[in-house]
């Protein structure tokens, strides 16, 4: 043993000197971002990844030598950065990438895992695979070609897989003389398209992967661009956004039983958090107990969170095995053997209705068959088509039945308990990837999921809607279309967002008067007004803000159905809250109006004296002062009240509303 530097498992910090510990802790603080890249062939994806690795100094000399040699032997000039990432021999010969490849690099801030997926027409499967573990997607667009169908397809898949952050990297800006116009027009095309999608955040960056502009370094060529470089964005974007820390689910993976006295249930926490003493329930038996300990080899924990691999012991002797799920008594997933899902087909052999497959969902496996193809998604036009089956690389909405019940959540709320794969028992291949929409209504009627709608003590109030995403609105006695006809104008929701003092209310009030004067049915919903009544029970925590906006959204929806032009003025600092409201309304009937000005201007105006209070410490968490406002990525209107007068803004909005 004398030659050993450290004893395995037995930590002896005193032996390490201070410096070592510091060095280590800096590194340990690094977090991790997994992202995926998508682009059509020749958009420059390999070059971009090569550039990221090269400029962030993640390439070793021997790798550099190897690609220099390769570049020379294929007769190319200079170094071909794309060669760094082109994997297998056959592909290198064909000069294409044909599968998902993973790359790694780190900067002092972050470690990155890139799932590099090709953009060929026929490889939806690979993109879905790469996207399934990604928190961010880079979609490459060739500036010299403009926005093509394939980029739209990539964006659609990213939204289907619920990747929280999207980056549209407009590449080859050098080929278009770094022209701002070209960039703006691609951005506006993309925005138009993206409205149809369910994506939270889109960032647009003009780059040249070949020359290096705005990838790692900012160069002078695009002085008109003030945003971050791609790497800076990757280093600072919020991670963990796809985790659900609310709904506790532990799919039991393995039971540890070293002796008569210990029975531990191991697994990786799919979502939520748990503590010793918490009351739990086991599915499918529905037996109840409490957590006694959270066991790890590094000691017992006071709390474990989504993503942690742990072992739980419970107070009572309950029979639990792999495939069971430990959840909270008051927050239970849907238990169902029938549900609807988006299914991406990944096998050459087409999906057949009624054919026997195996379904792997969390740690549970069952037999399954596709009962119905509700529609096939045309990923290019985003239209729905009738279909009997799904071929390789096709995506459809299907109904699935399983031999035993699964414990499911919608994928949107919980990626881990909302995803599954189908396996062909004949070939053992993974043939389908699914994202659960909801338990089918038939199953819900049978009472399988009653409990999930009960007490939601530890679930976010705002999520109540999500629990029933497929509830069909009872049609109105007098439909909106009829009301609109009588009113002689369309109903619409105008959502004004911005900090206190930005000028939202002033503009909205003036606009409403003008609209009213033109004979329109209108109503203005204002933050303060509602907080006295409907939302009187809410404060200003992020959760309460979310709930407030949720209520307002539904209220606006009701007035909308009544045929009104609904003007809403709410600080609404969170993008996702506003997007949730947008999602309540039909396409094109919701306009987001971002009213903004310099913080100093708002503080000078201080119409409600809030900034004065905040400055004196009387109130905390004031948006625009000590709490942030998330600006929209794609607002229909942006009004900078430092630059635009109330009259001008109202004029512009009036035109916009008339055009809509």
């Amino acid at each position, binding site marked *: 043993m004398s030659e050993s530097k*450290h*004893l395995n*498992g037995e930590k002896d910090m005193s032996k390490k000197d201070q410096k070592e510990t510091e*060095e280590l802790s800096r590194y340990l603080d690094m977090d991790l971002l997994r992202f995926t890249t998508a682009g059509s062939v020749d958009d420059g994806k390999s070059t971009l990844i090569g550039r990221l690795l090269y400029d962030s100094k993640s390439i070793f000399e021997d790798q550099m030598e190897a690609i220099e040699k390769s570049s020379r032997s294929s007769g190319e000039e200079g170094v071909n950065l794309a060669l760094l990432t082109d994997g297998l021999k056959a592909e290198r010969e064909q000069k294409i990438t044909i599968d998902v490849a993973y790359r790694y690099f780190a900067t002092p801030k972050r*470690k990155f895992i890139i799932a590099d997926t090709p953009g060929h027409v026929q490889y939806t499967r690979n993109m879905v695979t790469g996207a399934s*573990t990604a928190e961010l997607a880079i979609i490459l667009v060739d500036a010299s070609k403009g926005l093509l169908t394939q980029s739209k397809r990539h964006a659609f898949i990213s939204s289907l897989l619920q990747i929280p952050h999207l980056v549209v990297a407009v590449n080859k800006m050098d080929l278009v003389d770094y022209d701002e116009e070209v960039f703006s027009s691609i951005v506006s095309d993309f925005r138009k398209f993206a409205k149809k999608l369910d994506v939270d955040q889109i960032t647009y960056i003009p780059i040249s992967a070949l020359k290096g502009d705005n990838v790692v370094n900012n160069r002078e060529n695009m002085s008109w661009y003030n945003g971050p470089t791609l790497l800076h964005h990757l280093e600072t974007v919020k991670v963990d956004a796809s985790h659900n820390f609310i709904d506790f689910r532990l799919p039991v993976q393995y039971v540890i039983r070293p002796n008569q006295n210990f029975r531990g249930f191991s697994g990786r926490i799919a979502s939520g958090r748990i503590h010793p003493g918490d009351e739990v329930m086991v599915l499918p038996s529905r037996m109840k107990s409490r957590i006694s300990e959270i066991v790890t080899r590094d000691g017992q924990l006071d709390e474990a969170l989504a993503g942690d691999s742990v072992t739980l012991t419970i107070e009572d002797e309950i029979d639990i095995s792999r495939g069971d799920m430990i959840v909270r008594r008051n927050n239970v997933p849907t238990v169902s053997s029938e549900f609807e899902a988006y299914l991406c087909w990944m096998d050459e052999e087409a999906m057949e209705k009624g054919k026997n497959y195996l379904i792997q969902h969390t740690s549970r496996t069952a037999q399954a068959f596709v009962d119905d193809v509700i529609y096939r998604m045309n990923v290019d036009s985003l239209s729905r088509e009738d279909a009997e089956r799904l071929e390789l690389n096709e995506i459809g909405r299907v109904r699935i039945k399983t031999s035993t019940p699964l414990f499911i959540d919608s994928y949107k709320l919980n990626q881990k308990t909302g995803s599954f794969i189908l396996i062909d028992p004949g070939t*053992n291949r*993974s043939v389908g990837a699914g994202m659960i929409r909801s338990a089918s209504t038939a199953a819900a009627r049978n009472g399988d999921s009653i409990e999930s709608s009960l007490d939601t003590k530890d679930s976010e109030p705002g999520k109540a809607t999500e629990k029933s995403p497929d509830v069909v609105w009872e049609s109105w006695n007098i439909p909106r279309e009829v009301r609109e006809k009588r009113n002689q104008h369309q109903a619409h929701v105008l959502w004004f967002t911005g900090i206190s003092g930005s000028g939202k209310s002033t503009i909205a009030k003036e606009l409403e008067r003008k609209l009213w004067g033109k004979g329109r049915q209108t109503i203005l919903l204002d933050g303060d007004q509602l907080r006295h009544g409907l939302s009187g029970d809410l404060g200003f925590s992020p959760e309460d803000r979310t709930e407030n906006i949720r209520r307002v959204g539904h209220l606006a929806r009701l007035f909308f159905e009544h045929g009104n032009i609904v003007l809403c003025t709410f600080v609404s600092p969170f993008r996702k809250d506003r997007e949730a409201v947008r999602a309540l309304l039909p396409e094109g009937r919701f306009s987001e109006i971002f009213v903004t000005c310099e913080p100093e201007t708002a503080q000078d105006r201080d119409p409600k004296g809030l900034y004065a209070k905040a400055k004196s410490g009387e109130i905390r968490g004031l948006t625009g002062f000590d709490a942030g406002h998330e600006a929209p990525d794609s607002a229909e209107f942006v009004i900078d009240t430092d630059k635009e007068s109330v009259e001008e803004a109202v004029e512009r909005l009036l035109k916009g509303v008339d055009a809509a």
Partner: protein
Amino acid sequence: MEGRQRNSHLKQLEDEGIYVMREVAAQFERPVLLFSGGKDSICMFQLALKAFYPGRIPFPLMHIDTGHNFSETIEYRDRLVEKYGVDLLVGSVQKSIDKGRVREETGPEASRNALQTVTLLDTLKEYQVDAALGGGRRDEEKARAKERFFSHRDAFGQWDPKNQRPELWNLFNGRKNQGEHFRVFPLSNWTEMDVWQYIAQEGIEIPEIYFAHQRKVFNRRGVWLADTEFVNRQPEEKLETRTVRFRTIGDATCTGAVLSDASTMEEIIQEVATARQTERGNRHDDKRSETAMEDRKKQGYF
């Protein structure tokens, strides 16, 4: 663990590795953990200890012994096996040679690295292993970048890059027919730096040869090879005593040393952070051809 951030990347990699370990124990009947005594397999072993704590690791270690070992590695292996009471299975390349399953390479470049493949496959078959945990990392080499966590091998132990199953989310499909097996790589997403940092963080003992020491070496095409009884040193290859250490540990005939004074964990990490060469850059076997790794992999190499 104070001060350790919840979402630190090492924590995430560890959680993922433990998850994979448990998945293997649950999905397969006769898994083994391929243990070479190198830093990657040491990391894997640590993950296995954690995955099944307070129980014992529910599968044996398997060492494919080329017979060309650094003695420190074997001593380390035996100590570990004793300390944690795990079973050890050994597949011997020498035996494969004696039985005529493979023919020893000759000449100055002779290495048993290629022969290992046959011994590995034979040993897996002998013990009817259905999943072999390996320490492979995707960052090691381009051909590995597309490797899955659960990598399917046909009845001949071969890897077909065109016929690998897509891997989505954390759902691993370990289904197979009789005679087929899986290689499973819990460290897929780790880099060399992560491995070193993890070893430091966890305070894990590692074989002495990873630290700088004096050794008789000679230089062959830019690679420093140790002078052992197994290497055919050519007359023009002069022996020198140098301060070196190893970045990987494999067969002594083809694992190159690096000139280094790094004698503590901290110094090693510093060195890795500023290294201008990949660790495989020192592996003589990879220098033979541009796609060396890929070719060997198709045949069933680790």
